[in-house]
């Protein structure tokens, strides 16, 4: 066997330590995988909103797992019980682990009490994707929206999460904004907890 290092072989995958794991995955590998994901779904659905829904579902599964894993790894087993807490957790920790940096900004919506926005100049998943004119409002950031939704829902804060393009003057490509709208019960619970 050509092996130089002493790597402990674990008989059962469940015995491997949870630890840090390898942090980096190559960007091109991910871009390739993601484009395949989009293309595969494109052949299966009839319209745009179903495509977005499928991407969102894929992201939801990721979000559910990311939440547990990160809480265990980085936060030493402390849960998030408050709204602002979970939002800043998503905004910094989750973004850092997934994309290597914190999100550009986190804002509270002005029109409604239950809306928050996370915005980013250029989403990593959109970097190598161009949208043909006839698919107007489609946004591959639906995948990231799904991840955020998975994290929030599993932490006990049900929300509707969507991704939008926001044109900004002075910049060629529009900014991406993830809009988070929390459900009624979340606000009521927040008010109750004071």
């Amino acid at each position, binding site marked *: 066997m050509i092996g130089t290092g002493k790597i402990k072989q674990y008989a059962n995958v469940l015995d491997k330590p949870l630890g840090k794991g390898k942090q980096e995955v190559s960007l091109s590998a991910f871009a390739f995988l993601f484009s395949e994901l989009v293309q595969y779904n494109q052949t299966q659905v009839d319209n745009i909103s179903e495509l977005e829904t499928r991407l969102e579902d894929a992201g939801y599964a990721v979000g559910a*797992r990311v939440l*547990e894993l990160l809480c*265990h790894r980085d936060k030493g087993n*402390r*849960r*998030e019980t408050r709204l602002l807490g979970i939002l800043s957790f998503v905004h910094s920790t989750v973004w850092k682990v997934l994309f290597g940096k914190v999100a550009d900004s986190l804002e509270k919506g002005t029109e409604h009490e239950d809306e928050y926005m996370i915005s980013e100049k250029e989403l990593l998943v959109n970097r190598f994707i161009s949208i043909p004119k006839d698919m107007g409002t489609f946004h591959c950031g639906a995948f990231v929206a799904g991840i955020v939704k998975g994290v929030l829902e599993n932490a006990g804060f049900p929300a509707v999460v969507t991704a939008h393009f926001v044109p900004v003057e002075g910049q060629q490509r529009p900014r991406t904004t993830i809009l988070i709208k929390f459900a009624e019960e979340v606000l009521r*619970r927040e008010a109750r907890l004071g």
Partner: protein
Amino acid sequence: MTTTACFIIVSRNDIPIYEAEVGSAAKREDAAQLPQFILQAALDIVQDLAWTTSAMFLKAIDKFNDLVVSVYVTADHIRFMLLLDSRSDDGIKSFFQEVHELYIKSLLNPLYLPGSRITS
């Protein structure tokens, strides 16, 4: 000496995902389902308690005769519930942490649907 200990993992929708009985429990006909009942009753208490604290390990939260219910809540609101006669706190905490790690590992399996029964 009969030691009864019952361990149940309950998902966020109050569906038990995993059950186990530990120790040489003398099965009494009339109280065969007793551990399950006690743990189900404790679920409501856990629900309220979970939102007031950001720690994961909630110590003894309910007593029934001489049995103590001990609960550990994860970030996903999955509850690990343990029913046993009074014992030291440290042993229980490390047991829960080990179970938590195992649960995360099984969760990372992309073919595992969160909330379905754990069978291995």
